[in-house]
């Protein structure tokens, strides 16, 4: 019995000491590993400059770049990821590029390859969808850039999400006139019943982007025995230097547009690896056939759907 009390005292001292030791160790490990991070233990080196180019052969906007992440930190950086989405925080949310997860070993380096191809008509639809009804000045593409990573065996993870507006033009889209028709050519009010939509934008001041666009472009997308045509027509400039743009989207057999887009997505989802959908583009100088992979087809169908919803 005499020994019990000293044992209890020893137990309390040991327990207090253990709790203090673990607390101090945790603080020490965090301080020693985070301090180099705060003092610039990580750097981004550009291998190939970031560029955005138009690829006429594939009718795509190609984004390219290569970066080295260099670390002089005492622990590995894991789960590094980066993504860019066209995202307006509401209806539009399309991932354009995603890379990761990457690991940068302690005192090592790792390469982050940025590569993305976006079908130009999809981008145009999204620009229109993002700006339709907007009360802000100018034309823009809403982007969300996300980067993140984990450190110290995932004890600390950081993710930064930045909402950016890529300014396309200082000129806003004038009010858009919408016309909806069913398969028999009768006017309808609901998008669900429409087999054709006509959007007229008048009095668009001329500028760098508009002047470069062809006078007309017809995009034909085949879906199970019928086609969806997207016809873009530019007329002008008028006496004041303004243009009129007309965008018509229609199905060739009277199927409603929403059904056609759902069918197109279903076709893309059923496609195997390496399979493509041939899409014809006629810009007045001849017809070109573009092969779109399933991902791009789904993005194209979604962008049309989002634009239709935004316009109506």
């Amino acid at each position, binding site marked *: 019995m005499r020994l019990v*009390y000293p044992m*209890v*005292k020893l*137990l*309390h*001292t040991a*327990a*207090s000491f*253990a*709790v203090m030791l*673990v*607390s101090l160790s*945790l603080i020490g490990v*965090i301080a020693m590993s985070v301090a180099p991070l705060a003092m610039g233990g990580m750097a981004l080196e550009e291998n190939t400059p970031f560029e955005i180019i138009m690829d006429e052969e594939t009718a795509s906007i190609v984004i390219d770049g290569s970066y080295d992440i260099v670390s002089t930190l005492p622990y590995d950086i894991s789960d590094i990821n980066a993504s860019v989405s066209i995202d307006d925080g509401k209806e539009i949310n399309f991932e354009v590029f995603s890379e990761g997860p990457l690991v940068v070993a302690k005192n090592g380096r790792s390469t982050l390859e940025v590569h993305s191809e976006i079908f130009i008509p999809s981008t145009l639809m999204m620009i229109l969808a993002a700006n339709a009804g907007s009360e802000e000045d100018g034309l823009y593409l*809403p982007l969300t850039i996300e980067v993140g990573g*984990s450190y110290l065996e*995932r*004890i*600390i*993870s*950081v*993710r*930064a*999400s*930045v*909402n*950016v*507006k*890529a*300014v396309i033009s200082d000129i806003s889209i004038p009010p858009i006139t919408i016309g909806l028709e069913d398969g028999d050519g009768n006017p309808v009010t609901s998008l669900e019943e429409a087999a054709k939509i006509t959007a007229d934008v008048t009095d668009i001041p001329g500028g760098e982007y508009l002047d470069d666009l062809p006078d007309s472009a017809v995009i034909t997308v085949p879906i199970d025995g019928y086609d969806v045509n997207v016809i873009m027509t530019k007329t002008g400039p008028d006496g004041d230097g303004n243009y009129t743009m007309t965008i018509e989207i229609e199905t060739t057999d009277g199927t409603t547009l929403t059904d056609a887009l759902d069918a197109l997505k279903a076709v893309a989802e059923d496609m195997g690896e390496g399979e493509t959908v041939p899409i014809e583009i006629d810009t007045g100088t001849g017809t070109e056939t573009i092969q779109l992979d399933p991902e791009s087809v789904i993005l194209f169908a979604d962008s049309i759907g989002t634009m239709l919803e935004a316009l109506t």
Partner: protein
Amino acid sequence: MTSEFSLRYAVPGGAFLSFSVTLFTLILLPLSLFALINGLVANMGTEGIGGMPPEQMQQILDELWLYVRKLIRYAIPLLIIAIPMGLYRAGSYAKIPFRFLFAIYSVIIVIALTDGGMIQVAIDLPMEMGSEFSVEDMVITLDITVFIYITMLIGTAGAFLAFTEFASGRKDFMEKKAEIDEGPQGGDGEPVAEPQA
């Protein structure tokens, strides 16, 4: 028989010490650090830090101030608990609930203050980046969930030290109690088991 919660067995100096340490750690130190950072940023003038404009720095400071205010608000009950925790001697039944509550409430503060380990800092400040891009807003999420779990474990283990402290100081407390009960001006003597803040 007098209850161990009686102030006859209390140590006012221990209560003061416990209160002061808690006040300094959870209120005065964070306030001083914030004032220091605020002063340093104010001295930067219009230059900013690391390319960050002063307006953006001010937004981060505002977020930090919210955290400091939150900490102070959460710490007030802890200040109150700290008084009886220091007031009663180690080894008395009276100290156990306050010491246990103090540790558990500290863990709750850490969880509440860090939103369970997911700290979000939102910077809502439109900023031009050349003529082609404009930043609308930025959200930085710091995930320290694992760190919070470890802290929770340490805090909970610390709470159970209330019981080992009781067992360890019980004999000394009982001797002191007997001394106080017997003596005409009991309680003025040197405490056998020192209270811990």
